[in-house]
């Protein structure tokens, strides 16, 4: 058992500085969440509500011969039993995925992964629904499954997607970026080439709250209300309209409090559609809430990339080029959540933070008999894989060159004057200043002393490792000219209304799942208008009373919606200025804005506050010509580019040479996300992401046996880290504002999840240097570390 150090509570004393704008303040939503007043989907209770349970396939690959539902239908309390055949009759057996593939709502012909939805029961209570599942008799004809992704394209591999006309193999797509010829040329002339096969195993977002929905279809009004665990309520509404044929204005999607998303709640799952069908069929509200095992085996996974990485450099350590070949496992249906023109998400940023001459990537994606997905999991659309790839291979290069990995990175950074910097794969990094971030992390870590300590320990046979990662992310999707999801441009709306007494409500198109939107967005408005955050309510999640937009994932809320909030507040301020000029009887040009008030230039005694202006906007008396009453505005923000946060992470591990257990002793994270709105929230996001990183690096993996059975079907089998596996995080920051974002902010939500796994793995590999180890794949469980120590490291798949 790890002993928990006494945490000095005084460390948190400065967390509430009551800023009117940016600064540390406690989260407005926390009182509700901490006191049990949160309202989650499973808290929704409607009169006459029925409950839904899903029968899932026990096999990874099988034909459905027959389904007998008669005993289930006769079971106490059961109102409906629905199979794929029923849905086929309604034209609802299949639905589009986020990547223009289709996915079965209920299997008709065949099951294609273990856990796939086969039938559902609606009953008076959840126990009756669950018990009735046992009474459904399904006869399966079991087929050979495709489990090993490397064999998916073998000529004799069973074809999984027989539903797709003319499909004769398991190929999903090929994708390429960069310049192959130029890259080969640079490689051919390089002094040093290092090659490594790197696996990023399949992991699962495993949010604390599983997925679920309550559908309430009113047959009289033809109106559907749907409470659901969604990170993107507006996009979902549009998709339901398209799939179910219900007019969009008759659909209200409500995402209430959400207990963690991490990308898991971006897709539309069959279960949501089941609850809608269930409500239409029974005429009653229907609740579906999946259990933990269902969440782990059937909902969107993440990663599952097998990457061959190659790096070319001069003997002095100048990185010249990077190339990679990727085999991507997309499961049974391609459900990747990414802008449609980016089938591999933003993996193209695999060139990292380095100024290189050439780069090339070739990727092949395949179907296997595993759960569909390929969603985020805090990955900023595959940037997690890209950063892991480059930061691992750069470390392997340092190993070969016998160079310090910090020095190698410092030597190759893109320089501050090179921004905006266009990478060899076509990404335009907006701003960055890498060296100070790196130096700060090294200073906080005491890097030189750590290396000395390591040397002493190595002499004594102790295993200590120091791992570095330096990442650049591309977040805030995205410019509508080239980014959309199923045709919906990735812009976001924002509406702001200031009430007569100067309190305000701001309505967002994005939706928090724990990121603290209700605080951060109030602070953005506060900064622009000088209204205290406590006086600003943030509404989000309900499509009936928020503007359209694509939701929260890929660290996009602050880059996109945050910009919208700042700009909508400026619009309100512009109008307030007109009213102020009338109130003060001076021309607009004679007014100065001092946060919260307009002041007559040169006469600070004469001013009106935003609250006074708000009252006047709604009050008696004429307003200046052409100015309407009220004080409100709305906007739809289309970002001109992504934002590119960066960070330097240093991890220190100790490995027990006898048992091969890895202990993360220290972790230093210096993040640069541009302008910092609420540093406490930023740190919270970083802490969470770093913990995620420890999980992925050391223990998490969704694995399958040879029959395609998922071996991670419970939290006893799929391990996520606890407080005892993580050190006291040491965070720091630098600030390089985004030049195109109205307040200079960049995304932070996923930085730590992206940046920490390579730091931890690099530290473990560094600790194992005495054994001549250059690479070992995640998850670095004691058993796998022990294998590595004996030179027997194997890929996890």
């Amino acid at each position, binding site marked *: *058992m*790890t002993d928990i150090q006494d945490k000095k509570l005084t460390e948190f004393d400065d967390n509430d500085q009551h800023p009117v704008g940016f600064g540390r303040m406690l989260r407005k939503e926390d009182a509700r969440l901490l006191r049990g007043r949160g309202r989650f989907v499973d808290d929704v209770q409607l009169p006459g509500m029925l409950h839904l349970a899903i029968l899932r396939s026990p096999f990874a690959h099988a034909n459905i011969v027959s389904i007998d539902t008669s005993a289930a239908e006769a079971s106490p309390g059961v109102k409906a039993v629905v199979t794929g055949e029923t849905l086929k009759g309604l034209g609802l057996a299949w639905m589009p995925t986020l990547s223009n593939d289709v996915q079965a709502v209920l299997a008709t012909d065949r099951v294609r992964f273990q856990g796939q939805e086969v039938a559902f029961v609606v009953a008076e209570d*959840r*126990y009756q629904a*669950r*018990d009735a599942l*046992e009474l459904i008799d399904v006869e399966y004809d079991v087929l050979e499954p495709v489990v090993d992704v490397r064999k998916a394209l073998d000529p004799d591999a069973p074809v999984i997607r027989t539903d797709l006309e003319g499909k004769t193999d398991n190929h999903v797509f090929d994708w390429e970026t960069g310049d192959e010829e130029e890259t080969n040329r640079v490689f051919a002339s390089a002094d040093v080439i290092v090659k490594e096969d790197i696996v990023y195993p399949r992991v699962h977002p495993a949010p604390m709250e599983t997925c679920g929905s309550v559908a309430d279809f009113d047959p009289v009004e033809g109106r559907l209300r749907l409470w659901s665990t969604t990170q993107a309520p507006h996009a979902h509404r549009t998709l339901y309209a398209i799939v179910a044929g219900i007019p969009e204005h008759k659909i209200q999607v409500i995402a209430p409090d959400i207990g963690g998303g991490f990308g898991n709640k971006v897709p539309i799952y069959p279960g949501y559609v089941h609850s809608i069908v269930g409500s239409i069929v029974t005429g009653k509200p229907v609740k579906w*809430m999946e*259990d*933990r*095992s269902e969440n782990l085996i059937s909902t969107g996974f993440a990663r599952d990339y097998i990457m061959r990485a190659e790096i070319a450099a001069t003997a002095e350590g100048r990185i010249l080029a990077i190339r990679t070949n990727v085999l991507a496992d997309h499961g049974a249906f391609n459900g990747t959540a990414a802008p449609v023109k980016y089938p591999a998400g933003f993996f193209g940023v695999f060139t990292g933070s380095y100024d290189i001459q050439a780069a090339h990537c070739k990727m092949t994606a395949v179907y296997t008999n595993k759960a569909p997905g390929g969603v985020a999991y805090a990955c900023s659309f595959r940037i997690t894989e890209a950063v892991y790839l480059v930061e691992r291979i750069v470390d392997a290069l340092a190993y070969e060159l016998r160079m310090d990995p910090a020095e190698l990175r410092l030597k190759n950074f893109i320089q501050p004057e090179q921004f905006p910097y266009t990478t060899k794969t076509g990404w335009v990094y907006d701003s960055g200043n890498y060296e100070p971030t790196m130096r700060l992390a090294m200073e906080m870590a005491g890097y030189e002393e750590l290396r000395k300590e390591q040397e002493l320990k190595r002499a004594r046979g102790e295993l200590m490792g120091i791992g570095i990662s330096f990442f650049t992310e591309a977040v805030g999707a995205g410019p509508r000219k080239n980014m959309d999801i199923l045709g919906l441009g990735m812009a976001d709306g924002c509406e702001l209304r200031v009430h007569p007494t100067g309190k305000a409500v701001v309505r967002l198109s994005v939706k928090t799942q724990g990121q603290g939107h209700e605080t951060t967005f109030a602070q953005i408005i506060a900064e622009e208008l000088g209204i205290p955050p406590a006086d600003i309510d943030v509404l989000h999640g309900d499509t009936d009373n928020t503007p359209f937009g694509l939701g929260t994932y890929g660290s996009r809320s602050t880059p996109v919606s945050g910009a919208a909030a700042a700009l909508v507040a400026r619009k309100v301020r512009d109008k307030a200025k007109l009213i102020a000029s009338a109130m003060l009887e001076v021309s607009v040009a004679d007014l100065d804005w001092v946060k919260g008030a307009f002041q007559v230039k040169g006469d600070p005694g004469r001013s009106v506050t935003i609250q006074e202006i708000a009252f006047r906007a709604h009050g008696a008396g004429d307003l200046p010509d052409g100015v309407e009453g009220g004080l409100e505005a709305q906007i739809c923000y289309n970002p001109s580019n992504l934002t590119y946060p960066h960070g330097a992470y240093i991890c220190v591990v100790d490995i027990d040479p*006898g*048992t*091969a*257990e890895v202990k993360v002793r220290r972790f230093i994270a210096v993040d640069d996300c541009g302008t910092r709105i609420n540093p406490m929230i930023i740190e919270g996001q970083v802490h969470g992401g770093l913990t995620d990183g420890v999980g992925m690096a*050391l*223990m998490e993996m969704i*694995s399958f046996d040879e029959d395609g059975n998922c*071996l991670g079907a*419970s939290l*006893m*089998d799929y*391990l996520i*880290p*606890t407080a*005892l*596996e993580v050190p006291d995080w040491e965070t720091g920051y630098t600030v390089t504002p985004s030049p195109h974002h109205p307040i200079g902010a960049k995304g932070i939500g996923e930085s730590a999840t992206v940046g920490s796994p390579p730091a931890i793995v690099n530290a473990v590999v560094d600790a194992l240097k005495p054994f001549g180890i250059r690479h070992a794949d995640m998850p670095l*469980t*004691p*058993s796998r570390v*022990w*294998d590595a120590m004996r030179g027997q490291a194997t890929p996890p798949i």
Partner: protein
Amino acid sequence: MQVPAPFEYERATSVDQAIGLLERLGSSARLVAGGHSLLPMMKLRLANFEYLIDINDLHAELGYIRLSDDEVRIGAMTRHRELLESDVLAGVFPIFRDAEKVIADPIVRNRGTLGGSLCQADPSEDLSAVCTTLDASCVIRGPGGSERVVTMEEFHVGPYETAVADNEILTEVRIPRKTFRVGSAYAKVERRAGDWAVVSAGAAVWLDQGRIVDARVGLAAVGPNTTGIPEISAALRGHEPDESLFELAGAIAARSCEPVTDTRGSADYKRHLADELTRRTLRKAVERARS
């Protein structure tokens, strides 16, 4: 929501009444103590029983740690938490506290019991390894007040199988005390706090005039049941403890166990851990016996 299949539920008011119920209901009934092994299995529908007989009200009767000169008696309903916190127990057999620190988490420890742990007979279960190490015996009560006492070897019949019949209850565990200096220790390798053991080992050493009069090692998660290894006891008895002896014991442990490869680790690694942890716990046990 993971829910078990329907079952009937009754709270027992005394040991004999519980036995009466078991006798009447036969194999369709199960006792529930802490419920932390039984209920997860029922929720996953790996186990379905028609009746549950809740024995938590018997904690007053079966929850105790009693120390006498020649033995320690622990009631079957004693909770993990009570074992963890008992200074009396830690004073004589610190192996209990070592083990309890790494069993599950506080929530599970608040409810889970010694009796439930032993009766679950999971091959990775830690308290069985502790009891095996300490040469404990189990008191089993049946209909009509009948009582029998079995050794740990007799108690464990196979994985998830014990000597306790359908109409019987485990009431007490007895651990002999010998007049010699004793030291004991427990070590576990887990992938994460609260996880079941990859491998764990317990060791107890009794010293007389600096020589080992008896030594025992119990391993968990490396075979169908927690295993005592008599060959180690035989090899250590009569010797003065030193590193080479621990090494020998470790080697015996490694070759005497039967681990399998699973998601917790490879069989080779587990064998290695059996060796490593045997050495570590013996070293610690001797150190404690000497101090």
